[in-house]
């Protein structure tokens, strides 16, 4: 197996932990890490985070790129993605970028273009795409078992990120609230499932949930999407799970066609119970982050194009930015 040097840039995103754990134990991978961005209250970051996981740590991005990594995983705050991805591709590294690819369509397009110019691979980190439940759904739809698709219902609800990594609720760093955080996962699944880019979007948001937190972002989000073939989708990406819930949140996708229906709940696999403090939720589903990074590393080793790629990241971000424009204007808006 070809030996790869992989850089992990930033521990800002929740997924940095699972990426680091997987990469530090992956065969044929020499992992080097660094952190950028401001640490949020209650959040372990920087050299201390690296030490807690036994990771090799260098002081900054320049030092990391000076090691000429074959590939870089960017897990920074959303608004920093473009700058870091552009630095990495300029250094000749293939890049796996945390979702959303960027916070604006212009940034996303620039990143895709930069990777193309540099001749390196750009992949967007959408782990739910790698769930066996979604694979089964795609398989059955492509086999025609559901007939012609009519409509899709999707939910991606979670807790509002406040206790740790509160940058998710700072629009300057995250690009928005519940819309940008959770619509992209569903948008990616729809992109793969339907095989056509969305045509138009309508969204209504509100700030009733966790209004006590005083953050300048939407916490409730109701999104409608229409595809060129006529398929309609309804998405709920609200941060509506109370802090008392025993798990982070979840995602469901339900597809109805003229011949069949299927619903998936990729995060349902769990053992339930109670302890002295309340409900227990012990997940036992497959490690989707591992499957996703496996796809990335395999693509880097073989030179094939990984999926979901940078273009997918840009197309699915466009649904979010359209939803943001719709929520702001009250109008139905075309997807760029």
């Amino acid at each position, binding site marked *: 197996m070809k030996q790869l040097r992989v850089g992990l840039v930033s521990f800002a995103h929740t997924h940095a932990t699972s990426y680091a754990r997987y990469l530090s134990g992956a065969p044929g991978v020499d992992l080097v890490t660094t952190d950028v961005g401001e640490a949020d209250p209650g959040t372990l970051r920087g050299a201390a985070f690296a030490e807690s996981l036994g990771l090799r740590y260098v002081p900054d991005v320049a030092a990391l790129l000076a090691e000429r990594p074959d590939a870089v995983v960017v897990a920074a705050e959303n608004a920093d993605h473009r700058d870091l991805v552009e630095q990495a591709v300029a250094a000749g590294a293939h890049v796996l970028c945390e979702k959303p690819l960027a916070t604006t369509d212009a940034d996303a397009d620039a990143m895709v273009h930069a990777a193309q110019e540099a001749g390196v691979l750009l992949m967007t980190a959408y782990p739910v795409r790698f769930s066996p439940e979604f694979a089964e759904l795609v398989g059955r739809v492509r086999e025609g078992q559901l007939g*012609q698709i*009519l*409509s899709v219902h999707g939910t991606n609800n979670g807790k509002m990120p406040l206790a740790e990594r509160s940058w998710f609720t700072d629009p300057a760093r995250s690009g928005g609230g519940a819309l940008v955080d959770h619509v992209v996962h569903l948008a990616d699944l729809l992109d793969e499932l339907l095989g056509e880019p969305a045509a138009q979007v309508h969204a*209504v948001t509100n700030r009733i949930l966790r209004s006590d937190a005083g953050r300048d972002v939407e916490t*409730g989000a*109701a999104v409608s999407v229409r595809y060129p073939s006529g398929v*309609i989708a309804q998405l709920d990406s609200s941060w509506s799970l*109370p802090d008392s819930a025993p798990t982070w949140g979840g995602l469901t996708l339900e597809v109805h066609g*003229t011949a069949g*229906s299927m619903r998936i709940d990729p995060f349902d696999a769990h053992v339930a119970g109670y302890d002295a403090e309340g409900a227990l939720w012990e997940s036992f589903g497959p490690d989707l982050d591992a499957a996703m990074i496996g796809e990335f590393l395999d693509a880097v080793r073989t030179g094939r194009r990984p999926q979901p790629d940078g273009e997918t990241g840009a197309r699915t971000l466009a649904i979010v930015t359209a939803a943001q424009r719709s929520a702001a204007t009250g109008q139905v808006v075309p997807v760029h």
Partner: protein
Amino acid sequence: MQSSPPPLRVGLIGAGSISQVHAPAWRSLGAEVSVHSLTGAEALARAHGLSPVSTLDELWDRVDVVDIVTPTHTHADLALAAIARGKHVVCEKPLARSTAAAHEVVSAARSAGVHLFPAHVVRYFPAYAQAHAAVAAGRVGRVAVCRFRRMSAAPTADWFFDEQRSGGIVLDQMIHDLDQAEWFAGPAVRVFAQSIARTDDGGARAASATVTLTHASGAVSQCYGVWGHPHLPFSSSFHIAGDRGVLSHDSARQDGTRVQVADPRSGGYLPPTDVASSPYTAEIVDFAAAITSGQPANVTGADGARAVLVAEAVLSSIHTGEPVEVPAPADARLAGDTEEAADAVPAPERTEEGR
């Protein structure tokens, strides 16, 4: 009781799907039920111990309460005819095909001093009723985001897919959840909707629609309806998120019974029910009690007219592709949970306004 009141005399108009759950509900109360229908009255009468009658005039002479379970486009004229003869009216939802007709029926009932009950049966489904009581008691705090899903195999009778006659999936099926959305989150001020209909190679029709409601309270609701393929069993769900908690229920995820038999019943247009625990019985019991005791029922004529108004705004959004403003319930008597609606003193000026 020492001296039982005389049995209610009920006239069922129509003998389709819904009549098969309304008829046993009335009979469980000891009501004397006559039935008139263009087709199927004899069979329905035999199955449930009813008296078939061959003309509407015959029906009017025999009953105090009329239960209209006909196709949607006939509801208003039949209700107005019954009201004109002083009958109390139970009317399957939607109360009428148009808002104007629904308001006409409500006004006529008020003028005539008769009870009018649109059969919004979901308010009587125990999970919805329990959740509504919990939300009203503040258990989830201020309501923020609601979801309502409803699906079944597509109905096969032609009129359901004729928008002029039925209003399609929006007026026939999703009106349940449009009513629920306002029941849980208060009046809507704006709706946005999209829909799709497809016919497969075998000629089977299917449809789906999505609705986003923005409420005056700031809450937002999503309704999702599917008239799907023939294998799709009935199910419905809700998810109510407030700033202090979440309540949810999905009829497809209940585990109260598990059955393994050779011929499991599945699919179908109506949820499976038995008479004693049926929400349709609970609904008829509530209406009958309101008629005999004068106490308010859980749904009023005004609620039925409001649901038609919201559903028509939804159809308008589907046709224009744009969000549509929903008029505020300007008159409390036409929009609130009024206790006066049925027993109000006749108000002649409203009759003029209504007609």
